[in-house]
């Protein structure tokens, strides 16, 4: 009896020890998890903070208010440059009239100001013969200085802006003729050699066109492939081979798709280079496996009882699938498609091969126009030496992230909206 009691007690103690150990192990595991998540969140915060802190300045731009005399003679002669020069000289009458001095003065404003003036006149001919105040973009060095990116205490030869210019900026500021304003041209222009004039509209439109091609091609093809594989394909060797290859395709480096596109779409079919149509085709190829895999998973997750019930009522297989299975699989399918699109939106490598990583000034007007895409634009700007492009890079990144966020949000929204209990 006593020995029995003793063993019970000792095994009780052992059990308690075991229990304690188990609880400790559980707490430890949770701690690891929390640490991992905090690390990930920390990196995310650092990344976002650095992008935003550098990028938010990209959304504003230093502008200078000029008083321009829209003289009819000059306009008729097309001498907008002279018009600008006159207006600058009026601001700074004692700037000197030598060629070098005139050029320094002109460098206060963006090199594209002349074109801006012409556009202003063309947009509103009534302005001819009047004297108007016009806000024009400051040049990149002025912009950078005004945003505090250039240290005025440096010796003159070490900074990109001269003492004379600094004095003029001070004068402009005193006159209330210089200010940071919202950078509308960032969203309304294409790329430019001058950072202050560079915009992302061309890239956004290029991305949108390419994605449109992608979604139109890959969504129906992907969903139909998934339906066929799930519901109709005979379960044989060939089907299995296709399935394996689709799964593998999803893991193929995207540059390979670019090479394929280059070889097939450009060289064989002769599609235009740098065009959304060819870029979209390549992105479709890349997105297809993702859409097929997620759609198949979504279709498989639909209880077979729906299709059975419909077939039991005399529906054909196709009817059963289109009436019941696909609607029930819609949230998963759409989510997969949107995630695939989001990935396509962020893709650069395959487009590199299609010539879509390009300097594009004009906003593309169609699927065959030369164009670039958002991430390519980020890449191009990140490569540029001018300081002004650094903040453009960050700003474009914010725009890109914004689009991705919106798309993922849409995916979540659609899933919530269509998700039904069964």
């Amino acid at each position, binding site marked *: 009896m006593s020995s029995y009691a003793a063993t019970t007690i000792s095994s009780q103690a052992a059990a308690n020890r075991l229990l304690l150990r188990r609880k400790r192990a559980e707490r430890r595991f949770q701690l690891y998890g929390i640490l991992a998540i905090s690390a990930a969140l920390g990196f995310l915060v650092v990344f976002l903070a650095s992008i935003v802190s550098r990028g938010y300045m990209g959304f504003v731009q230093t502008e200078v208010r000029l008083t321009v005399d829209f003289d009819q003679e000059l306009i008729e002669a097309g001498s907008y440059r002279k018009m600008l020069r006159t207006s600058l000289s009026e601001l700074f009458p004692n700037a000197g009239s030598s060629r070098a001095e005139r050029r320094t003065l002109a460098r206060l404003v963006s090199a594209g100001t002349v074109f801006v003036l012409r556009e202003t006149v063309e947009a509103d001919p009534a302005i001819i013969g009047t004297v108007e105040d016009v806000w024009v973009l400051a040049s990149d060095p002025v912009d950078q200085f005004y945003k505090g990116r250039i240290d005025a205490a440096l010796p003159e030869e070490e900074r990109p802006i001269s003492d004379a210019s600094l004095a003029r900026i001070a004068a402009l500021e005193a006159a209330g003729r210089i200010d940071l304003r919202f950078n509308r041209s960032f969203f309304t222009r294409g790329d430019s050699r001058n950072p202050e004039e560079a915009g992302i509209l061309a890239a956004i439109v290029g991305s949108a066109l390419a994605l449109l091609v992608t979604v139109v091609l890959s969504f129906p093809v992907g969903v139909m492939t998934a339906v066929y594989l799930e519901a109709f394909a*005979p*379960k044989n060797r060939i089907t299995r081979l296709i399935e394996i290859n689709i799964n593998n395709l999803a893991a193929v480096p995207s540059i390979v798709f670019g090479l394929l596109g280059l070889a097939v779409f450009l060289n064989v079919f002769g599609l235009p280079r740098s065009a959304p149509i060819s870029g979209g085709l390549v992105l479709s190829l890349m997105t297809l496996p993702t859409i097929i895999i997620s759609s198949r998973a979504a279709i498989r997750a639909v*209880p077979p*009882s*729906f299709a*059975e*019930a*419909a*077939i*039991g*009522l*005399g*529906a*054909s*297989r196709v*009817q059963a699938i289109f*009436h*019941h299975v696909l*609607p*029930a699989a819609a949230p998963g399918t759409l989510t997969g498609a949107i995630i695939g699109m989001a990935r396509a939106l962020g893709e650069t490598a395959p487009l590199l091969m299609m010539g879509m990583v390009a300097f594009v000034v004009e906003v593309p007007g169609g699927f065959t126009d030369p164009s670039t895409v958002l991430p390519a634009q980020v890449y191009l700007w990140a490569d540029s030496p001018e300081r002004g492009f650094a903040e453009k890079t960050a700003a474009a990144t914010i725009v890109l992230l914004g689009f991705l966020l919106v798309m993922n949000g849409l995916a979540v929204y659609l899933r919530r909206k269509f998700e*039904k*209990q*069964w």
Partner: protein
Amino acid sequence: MVNVSALSDPQPKLVARAVSVYYGGKQALFDIDLDIMSREVTAFIGPSGCGKSTFLRCFNRMNDLIDDCRSTGSMLLDGSDIAGPDVDVVQLRMRIGMVFQKPNPFPKSVYDNVAYGPRLHGMAPTRGDLDEIVETSLRRAGIWDEVKDRVDQPGTSLSGGQQQRLCIARAIAVRPDVLLMDEPCSALDPIATATIEELIDELKSEYTIIIVTHNMQQAARVSQKTAFLNLGRLIEFDETQKIFTNPSEPSTQDYITGRFG
């Protein structure tokens, strides 16, 4: 031995002769001969994997959906072939409805669930006709009073027993002659099961019903004839009362008294 002729009425609703079913190389049913009488409930009982569901699905050709499934032998509905390759399965499935193990209403409204079949077959030219079919079917399934105020709500919002009655309403909306029920109560609680059993008893005045069940008491309660299948063979087919008081075959006896295996 199963004495088919002794049970044969002049006009059985469904006739199976020498029905064998194969899944790939594996034979699932062996030479089954069976007559199903009109307006009776016939229960199929037997251990899992005995082929009773497979046999049930032969009647409305649901086995066609399985790739490597093929069957031999002849099956007749009111004397006309239903097993041949030329049979229009859509027509067949209109005449032989099916209710499944788990209540499986479509994720649509109660109304749309019932209206699906009639719409599919173009049975209701006007909205009024459709309304009538839906109401009649729901009434016949004994669920109208419970759902008449919420036919626009999703069928999935009903309780399990109501869902199963909705599925029965959906099946009878296409006006079949025969109802196949594949363990219709296995996912339901006893009360819901009782309502379904009561419904089956009422429906047998209009429909020929075949029910597969694991619950032998249920087979005893609802059916007039019982077929016991084991290992793909029809072991015994007789009046339910006979099967449950004095079965002829020792293995039937072992099965129903719980001495199996």
